[in-house]
């Protein structure tokens, strides 16, 4: 698809690479993001990658839409080399029905036991398409088709921090307690946001994630260590 520029007032525009959520489209978003980050044109404030478009934020006092779009077009015309592969994280998840309150409903609707949900959820490597909704909230895909479910019709008012959730062909870990409409299937004991870490947000767009099932005792032990500041998230990085 042709690249499309759409306006967000006089401080930003979208560079749209498609209409769909897929790896090929997102790779073009991430490639432009990386290129503009490496060589920011004058007046660029920041770029925000999303599923199929890049938000280019600029300072309208020191540059203009016309100048910034020309700089972005020049960056697009450059090499289309894929950005460096993102980091791979192995995130522990406890798929205990106490921590995944929607497992019962998934059994009713999909006929899958908690063990089957855990096995399917852990069977693939996920790609972090983008972050949003709240600091550190990663939209990861693609979920195995067997687990695909639309969002809950009644969003929860309170989803506990650490909840591992699925919706559509996506999965996430809620970094904060917040309202939420995704199906909760377990919990991750490692905080996805921790203000005491030098880099408070764990995941970045472009990273890869594998979920590894742990039992309740292991979950409690990691959660306790993390609470006490004794858990190094670098230990989750795959070699």
């Amino acid at each position, binding site marked *: 698809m042709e690249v499309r520029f759409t*306006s967000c007032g006089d401080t930003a525009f979208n560079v749209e690479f498609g209409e769909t959520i897929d790896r090929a489209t997102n790779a073009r978003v991430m490639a432009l993001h990386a290129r503009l980050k490496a060589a920011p044109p004058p007046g660029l404030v920041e770029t925000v990658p999303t599923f199929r478009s890049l938000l280019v934020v600029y300072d309208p006092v020191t540059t203009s839409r016309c100048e910034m779009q020309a700089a972005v077009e020049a960056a697009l015309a450059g090499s289309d080399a894929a950005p460096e592969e993102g980091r791979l994280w192995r995130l522990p998840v406890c798929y205990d029905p106490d921590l995944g309150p929607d497992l019962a409903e998934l059994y009713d609707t999909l006929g899958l036991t908690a063990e089957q949900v855990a096995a399917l959820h852990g069977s693939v490597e996920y790609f972090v398409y983008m972050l949003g909704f709240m600091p550190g909230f990663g939209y990861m895909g693609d979920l195995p088709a067997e687990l695909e479910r639309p969002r809950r019709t009644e969003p929860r008012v309170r989803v506990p921090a650490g909840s591992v959730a699925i919706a559509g062909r996506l999965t996430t870990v809620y970094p904060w307690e917040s309202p939420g409409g995704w199906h909760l299937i377990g919990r991750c004991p490692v905080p996805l946001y921790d203000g005491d870490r030098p880099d408070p947000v764990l995941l970045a767009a472009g990273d890869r994630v594998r979920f590894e099932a742990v039992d309740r005792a292991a979950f409690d032990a990691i959660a306790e260590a993390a609470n006490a500041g004794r858990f190094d998230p670098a230990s989750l990085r795959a070699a």
Partner: protein
Amino acid sequence: MMAACLTVVRPGLFATIQDLGRFGFQELGMPVAGALDPVALRLANALVGNPQGTAGLEIALLGPALRVDAPAVRIAAVGPLALTLEREGDAPQPLAPHRSHTLRQGDVLRLGAVDGASVACLAVAGGFALAPVMGSLSTYVRAGIGPLGGRPLAEGDRLPLTRDSAPDGSDVELPQPPDYGAGPLRVVFGPQEDRFTDAAIDTFLSATYRVGKQADRMGLRLEGPALAHRGSADIPSDGLVTGSIQVPGNGQPILLLNDHQTAGGYAKIATVISADLPRAGRLRPGDSLSFQAVTVEEAEAIRRRREQAIAGWVRAIRPVRPTGGIDLEALYAENLISGTVDIVNGGSDIPLL
């Protein structure tokens, strides 16, 4: 001696520390936050001699009471805010906004109700001696990010000051409060105006909307005629900016403000231009508003004129005139007596005596 600070004697209802926003981390899902009325913050800073982007207090609804635990401090408030000085041995004394005041050790500054806009700003000379979080002192309350653990002021908080005395020089004032302009908020269509029916576009430009009760730093839910989508209201989530007007399935627009999420999955019909964002940030529940479309190029020109106006207001900051009597020096300075004012063409907006 204890480090110079302002101590929060009463917290008020919702006072937060804000600068001009936490840019550069939206790719991690981090909202920008920052002052809802950046013009007020910039002018308040100018009045106390700070760089315009220095963090100050944003005061909503009812302000806090602050005790000066420093030999002296210079402050200035900009916005529709009542200030009262309580000084030991004196009767409480009202202080005017839009000028600086030099306070002494033990003084209590009571910031009253904010009336006429959603927020007002208070700046202190030198700013607060607080550690930035991700490069900014803006407070994002929903996730507890920013100074003071990312929450509004609480009783007993000590706001450390970078200076323990007021700067040299006398107090200064703005000749008049900032002019925010009037009329419809100007918008640039997009990024998804093609997701709306022609009738919805016409309605959006002709209708009057009202700010509903659900109005906070994240955004304003607007009440008025529904805007119909062509097909679904949902899009693959994409980036948002302050001023984005998103329209969920019920057709009621939401004008996003500084604490907006970094991305969202509802179609956005238009975006308020940057020059009009301070006006949008000042709206309160019950206020009416309408929209007028401009091009990006027009929006840029309007913004440049707005920056020139702000620079002009900053240049016009002058020493406070003595109360009572006529300040001849100031009158001469403004040419009101020397006869060079161009009355016919309205060359000055200062009323003739």
